[in-house]
Structures are given as C-alpha cells and as structure tokens.
C-alpha cells in the first residue's frame, strides 16, 4: 500500500497509545466501583490521574488529526457504512473528551480534590453540590457504557474490513 493509504505515523501512535490507555481506564473504572480490596484506593487514584493524561492526549490528537490528510474509505463501501464510520469516529472523539471531563466534574462537585501523581492537585468545590455530583456521576456511568459499545463496534468493523471485505482499512492503522 502507498503512504497515502495509510494513517501517518503520529496518528497511528496516538491511536494505539490511546487504545491501551482507554482500555486500561475502562477496566480500572469497572473494577474500582465494585472492589473492596486494599488496592482499590490506589487504582482509584491512578484512574483519576490518568484521566488528566487522557484529556491532554486527546486534545493533542485532535489537533494532529485536523492537520493530516486521512486515507479515504474504500470507494465501493455502501454509503450508509461510510456514514456510520464517520459518525462513530466523531462519537468516539466526543466521548474521549466527555469521559475525563464528566469524571472531573463529579469529583469537583463532590468536593474531592484530585491528586496528580503527587505533583499537584486539581481543585474541587468548597461547597459540595449533590445535584451536580449526581448528574455528572450518572453521565460518567452512561457514557462509559456508550464508550464500551462504540469500542466494540469499532473493533468489530475493523475485523469485518480485514477478514470479510479483505480491504486495507485495518492495515491503514497498523
């Protein structure tokens, strides 16, 4: 495949780096809300701190994406599949911003400052607001479900392109 059929190196690095980060965050999130084990607190603090890493990365990633030309989808792909592909990618971007933001806001309104690897702390409200906490807590939970579903769709589509359609869509990200 020619270079124009492939995502740029920076885009591939962002993609796979964030894939590892997001999957770890989802696993940590699902574990830490249920576990009563002694490592729960450590995992909770890692999850919060990496949320800050995630939002910084996705900002840089979006800027990088807007500066690069994307490989075109296969011409013969049905119109509806192209539409779903574009829409799901922008939904993923939206959630990559909205997850850390809602996570931070639920902590903010619960009055819980966030320690970032012991370097500094993100501020929290001086007066707790349980309504805003509830709103952002539920949003964080529902958006996590949406994110997991979209990731499943994303992986399913990549495998469909590679093994069933046998086109270069998956290879363009490798």
């Amino acid at each position, binding site marked *: 495949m020619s270079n124009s059929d492939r995502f740029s190196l920076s885009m591939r690095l962002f993609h796979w780096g964030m894939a*590892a*980060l997001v*999957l*770890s965050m989802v*696993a*940590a999130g699902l*574990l*830490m*809300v*249920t*576990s*009563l*084990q*002694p*490592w*729960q*607190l450590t*995992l*909770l603090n890692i999850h919060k701190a990496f949320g800050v890493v995630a939002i910084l990365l996705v900002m840089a990633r979006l800027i990088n994406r807007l500066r690069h030309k994307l490989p075109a989808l296969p011409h013969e792909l049905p119109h509806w599949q192209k539409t779903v592909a574009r829409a799901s990618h922008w939904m993923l971007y939206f959630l990559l911003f909205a997850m850390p933001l809602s996570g931070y806001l639920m902590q903010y309104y*619960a*009055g*819980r*400052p966030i320690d970032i690897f012991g370097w*500094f*702390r*993100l*501020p*929290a*409200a*001086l*007066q*707790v*607001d*349980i*309504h805003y*906490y*509830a*709103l952002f*807590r*539920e949003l964080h939970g529902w958006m996590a479900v949406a994110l997991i579903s979209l990731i499943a769709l994303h992986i399913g589509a990549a495998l469909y392109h590679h093994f069933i359609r046998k086109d270069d869509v998956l290879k363009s990200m490798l």
Partner: protein
Amino acid sequence: MRALYLALLLAPAVSFGADAPPKVSAQQFVNLQQGDSAFPGFRRAHAKGICISGEFQANGQLADYSQASLFKAGSTAFIGRLSIAGNNPTAPDLKAPVRSMALSFASSRTEQWRLAMNTPPVMAVADPHTFYQQIQAIQAGPAAIKQFFADHPESDEFRAWAAQYQPSGSFAAETYHSINAFYLINADGKQQAVRWAMQPTVAVAANASDEADALQQEIAARVAAGKVVFDWVFTLADAADDETNPTKAWPDSRQQITAGQLVVTGTTPQLEGDCHAINFDPLVLPSGIAATRDPILRARSAAYAESYRRRAKEQLQGALEGSNNE
C-alpha cells in the same frame, strides 16, 4: 501500566486460604446495609443525623508531624454531622448502639479532609468481607451474633469495650474514635502512624427521654445555649503497633498529643443543613495525611461512593422534595 492493570484484574480471583470469607463487592455491602426497604435520598448507613458547624482551633502541637495546614496554630471552619448507626432516618436516637461524628474541612480548593468517627475505639473484625458477615449476623439476631463473636476471637477487644460502654445523655459527652490508623507526614517526608479521638469536655448522665429525637433535641439546645468543645487527641504508634489492624487498640502508654479543640457553635436539621450533601469518605485526605493499608479503611471509599451514588441519584430524581427532617 497494562501489566499492572492485568495483575489487578486477576487479583480478586486469587484465593487467600481456605478459611478466608467470600469476597463481597461494594454493591453487595451497601445492599446489606440498606436492607429490604431503602429510604430514598438518605445515607445507607448512619441515615439519621444532625448537621453541626464550628471551627477547629489548632494549638500548633501537631504541626511538626503533619504539613496539613489545619494543624498550624489558628482556626479552620468545619461542617460536620452527629449521627446514630442504622439505615433508618427516623429511628429512635437512644436505641442505637453506636454514635458517630463526621467532619469536613474544606481548607482550600485543593486541600480537603473528611473524617468519620465512631464511639467504639476498635472494630470487631479486620477486613470488609468478615465485616459483611458480622452485619449479616447482627441482622439475623442475638444467637447469630453470639456465634459470630465466638467464631471470631479478633473481636475480643471490641466486645470488652461494648460490655463496659455506658451511653451518655448527649452527643456532646461521647468520645469519637478514628478507629482506623492514618499516617501523618511532615514537611521532611517523615511518616508517623496515628489514631485519634475527639474527647468530650463535659459529662452528661444517661438520657431518660422517650422522644425519638432525644439526642438531636439535646444537642441543638446545648449548642444554642453555648459552644460545645472536644479535645482532638492523637495517639502515636510505636514500632510494635500494627497500624493495619483495626481490631487492636494501642497501649495506653503511647505518646498522645492534643492538636487543639473542636468547637461546635451551630446545629441544623440534616435536610436543611450543608452536611447532607457531603460524602464523609475518610479517604478524602489533605497533603500531610495518608491512608494506611488497613483493609477496613481501604474498603471505605468504594462502599461510601456506592451509598453516595444511590442517594444522590434518588435526590436528583426528587426523592427528598417536600420532606422534612423525618
């Protein structure tokens, strides 16, 4: 990073020996606490309480041990809550076996501290999964709890305390213990394990009232008439003490430091006060205080968060609209 998460993913599956209790989740724990009929919008544990406010007046004695700003000589305002154990927000005050004090210091936007303290100085058990079984036994009745204690000799110190404990007639006359140990960390990074207690400065004879809200009425009247003061006393662990075991008290000979006085100047019914919105998770800590590896302490964040999430969602859905402080 991923290897760490993978290890953490597998951790719950590892068995820790034949007699280890089955692992319970935060959801199972809170389900047990709330019982068959939850009270929407209220805390799942210690549902009944009254908001308090005032300030902590530090004498500076603890400033060399912790860099937390509130230990420097001076005053820090707090919002707090005095409560009784149980899941029923209308339960009779004087029937509860345990009384509690919770505090929230919002020293700044980045430095906040929540404290949750109870009248017993120690736990009956040392881990959350056994604690779950203890609550099951309490709910099952006197024979079950008797059998539970017989099966759990680590509950000796708790039972000795319970046998001699005489409830006073006032929230103002109780001693409230941190139970779990924490580390104080000073500016040089030196770490010292401590427990603490809020010690009363008044004695009040047992309350003979038959009012359900006897303790709330008493403390509201007492604070209206004048401030209520507690001494905040820290006990410093020795190398011989296990700061991760909440069932064992440390010897009386350990060094104690009074960090200052907690002065209560206001009370408000909980649904009208600022304390109701707060999750008093004792793992919200300022710089200069850190959690030990005590398994009970470490289980608190997830359990408190589950209770908080449930009641916050219910409140968002209007559960408390039109309710008074019943």
